[in-house]
Structures are given as C-alpha cells and as structure tokens.
C-alpha cells in the first residue's frame, strides 16, 4: 500500500531498503575521498538522495546517486532521502536538476538565443567534438534554416557550418530534440525550397503539373515552384 503523504518529505531511511537504481559513474577516487570526508565531518549527508517508493519500506534512487554511493562507501546505516513520486517526468526532472543528465531543448521551436546558448555549451565542453565550429556562423545558419520542418538532424550537415555527420552531429543530438511540423501542401518559400533536394523538388513539381521537369536544374525548379 502506498502512503502518499510522505511525498516531498525528508526521511532518514535504512540504506538496505534502498535499491541503487541507475548507479553513478563517478570515479572511485571521488566516492572514496568524499566518503572519508563525510565520516570526518559528522556523517550526515546534508544533500539528500532523491528516491521513489517502490513498495512497503522499499525505495529506489532516482537521482543524487553519487550521494548514495558515498553513503554506502562510508558505511552509513541510514541515509537522508527525499521521497519523490514515481512519475517518469519527475525522474527526468530530478536527474536534470541534479546535473546528472543534460537538458534538451526543442530545436523546432527554440529561439535564436536558446540555440546559441546550447551551441556555446557544446563548443566549450572540454575535448569538444565541435571545437572547430564557429559559434556565430553556426547559430545564424541553424536559426535561419526551416528547422520547424526538420524530421531529423541531417539538414544541419548541409548548412556548411562545420557540423558534419558522425560525432559532431551526435553532439548536437545530445542537447536538441525535434517536434517537426508537417510541411505545408504548397511551399513557395524560396528559403525552404532551397534546402530540399532536386529529387524532392521534382516530385513536388510533378504534382503541381509543371511541364519540362526532367531537364530542369535546381535553380529553375525553385523558380518554377516559388
């Protein structure tokens, strides 16, 4: 049976009642050294572990798993925890708040400033894959592209802003997600048409009943469609 009135409260739980969940990937040194300091400085984990209730006197860590690992290493019998609900959104949120996961923003709708901040973050990471990317150039080109229609991140690689397929594009995927709008039936915006391939343009031209498609080059197709 679930006791909902303990949600959000700070509780001193037995460590053997807590399942570690996703274990921390912190290095051994940090865990051992922190555990030692924890013991020296009073043995109370002032920063609580965030757990959810999985059954009668059963809990699972959802974030601050580093603190859990330290408490275990220090041999604490009981550890201070905050009980969160078992909603998946809560798990995601607490992991992000604890800095264990990176937040993602929606590239389909993000403002220019948001795009810029995300790219700046990626570029400034130590050993960043995107070290050679020029922030101002990449921001402008991504911001001005018809990203509201992008179904995946591939179009970024054709913006000539130094982001190529592979590790660089993977880095982009780590901070952005997409919720694409469907393409309008009749596109006559030149900037959008220009991002499409000649094959796609020919397909649209065919639907619209434009004659002489086979011999047309991309520029001519764009002109005919716009």
């Amino acid at each position, binding site marked *: 049976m679930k006791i909902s009135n303990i949600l959000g409260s700070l509780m001193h739980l037995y460590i053997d009642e807590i399942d570690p969940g996703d274990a921390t990937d912190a290095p051994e040194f940090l865990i051992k050294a922190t555990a030692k300091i924890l013991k020296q400085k009073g043995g109370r984990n002032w920063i609580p572990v965030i757990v959810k209730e999985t059954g009668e006197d059963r809990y699972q860590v959802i974030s601050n798993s580093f603190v859990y690992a330290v408490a275990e290493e220090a041999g604490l019998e009981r550890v201070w925890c905050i009980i969160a609900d078992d909603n998946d959104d809560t798990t995601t949120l607490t992991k992000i708040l604890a800095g264990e996961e990176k937040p993602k923003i929606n590239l389909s709708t993000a403002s220019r400033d948001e795009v810029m901040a995300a790219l700046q973050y990626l570029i400034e990471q130590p050993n960043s894959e995107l070290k050679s990317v020029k922030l101002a150039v990449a921001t*402008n080109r991504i911001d001005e592209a018809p990203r509201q229609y992008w179904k995946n991140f591939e179009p970024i690689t054709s913006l000539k802003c130094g982001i190529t397929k592979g590790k660089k594009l993977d880095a982009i995927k780590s901070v952005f997600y997409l919720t694409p709008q469907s393409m309008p039936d009749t596109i006559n915006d030149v900037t959008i048409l220009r991002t499409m391939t000649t094959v796609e343009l020919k397909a649209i031209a065919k639907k619209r009943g434009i004659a002489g498609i086979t011999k047309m080059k991309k520029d001519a197709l764009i002109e005919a469609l716009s």
Partner: protein
Amino acid sequence: MNAPATTLQAALQSLPQGASEAIVSAHFSPQFLQALGFDSNEVVPEYDTNGGGIVDKAARKTIGNDIFLHTKSNPYLLLELKGKDINLTEGTPAYLKTVNQLKRQLLGSNCKSAKWGIITNSSHVQLFRKHGKVIFPATQCLALEVNNVDKVVAEIRKKIEETSRALTVTIYNNKGGVGKTTTTVNLAGILTFLGKKVLVIDFDFNQQDLTSALGIPVSDGLVKKALTDKNVDLKSAVVPYKFSNKKLQLSFDIIPADNELANDSEAELRTIIKRSILDKKLDFARQDYDYILIDSSPNWRFITQVAVYAADVILIPTKHNNLFSLENAAKAIQKFIPEIQAAKEDGNPIALPIFLNGEKITQPQLEVAQQAINNIIVNAKKEGFNLRPYFYPKYTTAKKDLHIHQVPSYANIANAAFSRIPAVYRDRSAHDYYKDLAKEYFLQ
C-alpha cells in the same frame, strides 16, 4: 500650503508617508497614466510580459477597434510601481534592482512592440526608451514633488508622444586601432541587409577612413557649413552609398568626413560649434532612419565629445590583446560618458557592453584578457563604480558567466576596405559575424 490645483497634485498629496506599493497603485498611478494620455480602457494591470515577469501596468492607446484592455496585445508603455517605502534615488540598490526588473519586463516576448518603460514610487520617476533590444534612460531619475509633478509628467508625455524611429549609436574607444570604422561599416551593411534604414556619419575627420573605405568623396566644407550655419540643414550633406550584385540591391546613407573640419584646431572648433550641435542637427534624421551610426575619432577631443553627445548609446569595440583598449573602455564608461550625461541632463548616452574585436582568441589569451578585466573591475569598485555589467553582461550574483561577445576579424574583413565594399557583402563568414553582433546587441 495652497489647495492643490490639479488632479495629479491632489493624488500626490493624498498619499500618506511611506505609502505602500498598493496605495501608490490605487491612488496615484491612475491619475499618472491619465496625465500621460492613457484612458482607463487603455491600461491593463498585472500584465504578463511572457518571459520577463508580471509588470504592474501596461498601456497602449486604442487603435481603431483594438482596445488594449480587451485584446491585451502590443503594449506601448510599461509602468513598474514601487511604494514610497522603497528608495528609488538613482544609484541605490533598490533603484538598480527596479531598473533591472523593468528591463527584463521590456524584453518579454509579449512586449516586442513596447517603446517605453517607466519606474516610479511617486517620489521619483524615470523614463526609459526601448529600441529593439536596447534599453536606455530617456530622462534622469527625477524627484517628484507637488510643485513639479505636472511639469515632469508633461515632459514625459511629450517624449512618449514623439517617439523617434532611430537609435543613435556612436562607436567609440579612446584607443585607436580597435576597429571602430570596420565595426561601423559592417554594422551599417548588415542592418541595411536586414531591412533597416541606416545613416552613417564619419566623424573622424583626420582619418576619414570610413568615407574612403566606401569610396565616397570627402566633403569640402559642406558638413562644416551644416554644423556651423543655423540656416543650413545637415540633410544637405547626406550622400547615398549603393551596393548591388546579382542577388542584392542595397543602399544606405552617409554623411562623409569633412576636410575643412579636419584642418580646424581644437580651439577654433570650440569657438564655432557647441558640444550639442550634432545632437540638434540630427533631428531631421530621427524619424527617417532606424539606425544612425556615428564613427568617432579616438581620444577625448572636442569633436569626439560632439559625437558622443549626439548618441543614445555608445558601442565600444576593444581588442583582447590590447590592454589599453580595455583600460580606455573602462575610462570612457567611468568618466567620459557620465560627463556627457551630466551635461545633457536626460540620462543618456549610456555604454553598451564592450565586445572583443579582432584576431581569433585562444583560451589562454582569453584568460589573460579576463584577468586584466577583473583587475579593472576591482579598481573601479574601489572608486565606487560597478563596471561589471559593461564587461560581463551575463554575470549575475547567482551565475558567474564571464562570456564577452566576440567578433573575429581576419584578412577578408580587413582587406574589404580596398574594394570599397563592406566585408559583410563580400564574405559569408563576415556576414554571419556581424549579423550575430546586430542580433545580440540591437535586434529583438
């Protein structure tokens, strides 16, 4: 004391000592907004700026059937109220906090249309202008009393009813060779590309770099005549710069450098023109252009002061590898610009945050520059001046963000002068860098 003559005076007198914000809001703000020309159905209380928090009052005149109280769209003016118990004297912590609050509100995404913001606690009032992303004072922080309230409010009303279309930006650094002219030309180029109407003024008569960079003939006394003869309009000195290629046809206007002014000595100049002359003479342009960019000469000479006096805001390019350019930027912000503010008596010009112009910066070089800046900030703090927002605009008490805007320069940008074409029209990367500068500093 005589019986109060006007509703505003009566409202002000009715307020008890230390009146709270709620009392100021109920007993002063309706009369205040009325006196500024807004009826009750043109004011929305507790307006959500969407991104900048809730502002106490937002106002806009009715346009046709579009009554602001009903549609709540496109506010024109925001009013942030405080109680009399909050001290809004310029420079106090409460004042700075309130100004920052108003700035955030004005930048909210529901307030893109807003042109003006006001802070008041009924003892003090200050008007701010918003132009794109730029927010600057349009009056000093004025003390309100029964015997001046009508006059002050009438002045504010006059300003908000004659909103000028243009933002006047003077590009200045006391140190030479930091890329003032390159910045001016390319900013003009990119703003024009983005559909803005731009006037550029070459106010560096000795170097005349801007004029020659665009292949425009130097003026032979025409500008001098316009500045010294009250019957001659400065408009007569305007020359168009036209650019066209296969895809683009663009043009912006220039007032070129003047040879005769270059020959005059400092002492001679002071006898024939006043420091406020350019500011006055530019009135013709303030409704015709979106941006007026003034390229000023280095050093704090008289002619530089004339250029700074005419500005709403000052854009200061610096170089990361030139300590003097950073120190001089600090000096301008701390000393020279306030000097002009005091003379002008309407709270402006103010400095925009500096940016780093020039060669590509490596991480160790950036750290050296940051160390130098930190020293400058610490020294200014000892003199009671907070330079941090001008160097680290993103730094807050909760977030030590030390990013400074950078515009890299490289051969293609520097050499553009030889071709008489702004680099932003010739080089795709230059185009992106200056578009970034324009969007970061000016465009919302």
